[in-house]
């Protein structure tokens, strides 16, 4: 459960005195619009124990009448920055995401507990080469990994080449578009996009759903021992993970996180 937890047997020795993950009232420091439907909350979480790239937090909303709702959201920020950033897709029909996107201004409080999850995580110590595949808002936990990667020193990065394949509906739906362009140059991350519902005329990226030919082109050859992380809606994750295994990747090196949008 600590930020240093790894998927290795040694964690069992640390389990003897489990410490409860307490609810903490975070303070919204800033909000940032990413797309028309997606907003980032920058949170100051008191006594935040730190996290690993790919982990998530639980958010709890308690109404005046005692009604409560909880949801899980991936952390978008890397461990290197003190704030915790959550990037939230606003679902019109949802109960929690419209509140988070519309009602929270800087200075507001928000209950969170975490960090949670110790398998869909990557840091430079895990090595690579690294392949990240995102669908829609599935980019969020992968962005924590990319930001962490970009914060590493150039020598570490040189030993772990990184690629991102990001599928979005349209160019306007690409989250972190400008920052991804900057990271591609500054941290030499190979960033590829595919747009599934229409692309602008001069678009140089792919224009279809992720398929076998695309993954064969963008992915690492299987003998390289690549670490793959796939996050997005279930059909995309099922398909991408199956293809990576068919292409010869070790299933234990293909880590997945699947979600429908959470309202």
């Amino acid at each position, binding site marked *: 459960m600590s930020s240093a937890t790894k998927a290795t047997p040694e964690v069992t020795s640390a389990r003897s005195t489990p410490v409860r993950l307490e609810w903490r009232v975070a303070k919204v420091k800033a909000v940032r619009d990413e797309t028309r439907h997606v907003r980032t909350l920058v949170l100051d979480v008191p006594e935040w124990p730190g996290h690993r790239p790919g982990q998530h937090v639980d958010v709890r*909303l308690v109404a005046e009448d005692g009604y409560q709702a909880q949801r899980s959201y991936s952390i978008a920020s890397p461990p290197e920055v003190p704030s915790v950033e959550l990037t939230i897709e606003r679902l019109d029909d949802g109960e929690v995401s419209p509140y988070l996107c519309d009602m929270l201004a800087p200075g507001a409080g*928000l209950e969170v507990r975490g960090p949670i999850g110790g398998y869909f995580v990557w840091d430079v110590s895990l090595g690579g080469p690294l392949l990240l595949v995102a669908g829609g808002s599935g980019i969020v936990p992968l962005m924590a990994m990319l930001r962490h990667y970009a914060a590493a020193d150039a020598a570490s990065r040189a030993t772990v080449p990184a690629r991102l394949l990001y599928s979005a509906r349209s160019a306007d739906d690409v989250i972190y578009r400008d920052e991804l362009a900057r990271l591609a140059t500054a941290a030499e991350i190979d960033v590829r996009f595919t747009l599934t519902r229409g692309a602008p005329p001069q678009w140089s990226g792919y224009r279809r759903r992720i398929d076998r030919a695309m993954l064969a082109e963008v992915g690492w050859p299987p003998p390289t021992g690549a670490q793959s992380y796939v996050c997005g809606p279930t059909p995309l994750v099922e398909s991408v993970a199956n293809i990576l295994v068919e292409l010869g990747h070790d299933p*234990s090196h293909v880590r997945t996180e699947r979600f429908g949008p959470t309202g």
Partner: protein
Amino acid sequence: MSDSPFIARGFHAKRAPAKPDRLPPGQYETRDFPVLSAGPTPHTPLAKWSFTIEDWAGHSLRWSWDEFQALPHQTPTVDIHCVTKWSKFDTKWEGVSLDTLLDAARAAGVVEGDHVMAFSDGGYTTNLPLADVRGGKAWVAYGYDGAPLPAEHGGPARLLVPHLYFWKSAKWVRGLRMLQGDEPGFWEQLGYHDRGDPWREQRYQGDP
């Protein structure tokens, strides 16, 4: 840290839950059937599938797919609760009661422990107290909603332990290993609760 909940000003229920007495704390009802797994979906051919119950002393009992299908089966309709907050009501399953399997294993000389470790294709494991898989509370399910259980939902067969959070209902299950004393499984080593009772909200290590 906060013992009493912080009130989210301006937040209110969008719609009252239809069956609040069936919804554990912190859960919401979904009509979908979300899929969550840590890795790729394994596809084990039925000819190579088997289910094994084994103890620490080398005794075991094993069923092939055909032998398993010949066992008496049940069709439980149950509510399921995922630690990622969704609950789904009245899900319809078909499978073999773990009482049937554990009784047969005991008769074959398999020594019962106080816990079991379920193990699956793909390397997934999860630990359960024996008391949680006996007494008509748990099944190995191979059918869902009148059809064979789809691979992404754990087919050909998965554990079904609906009174605990759904990560305990191991997908692609291939057997149970008897334990003397509790040991953490896959998610339990990664911060999730050892028992996972949704009504006590036992989500993570350290929860009451």
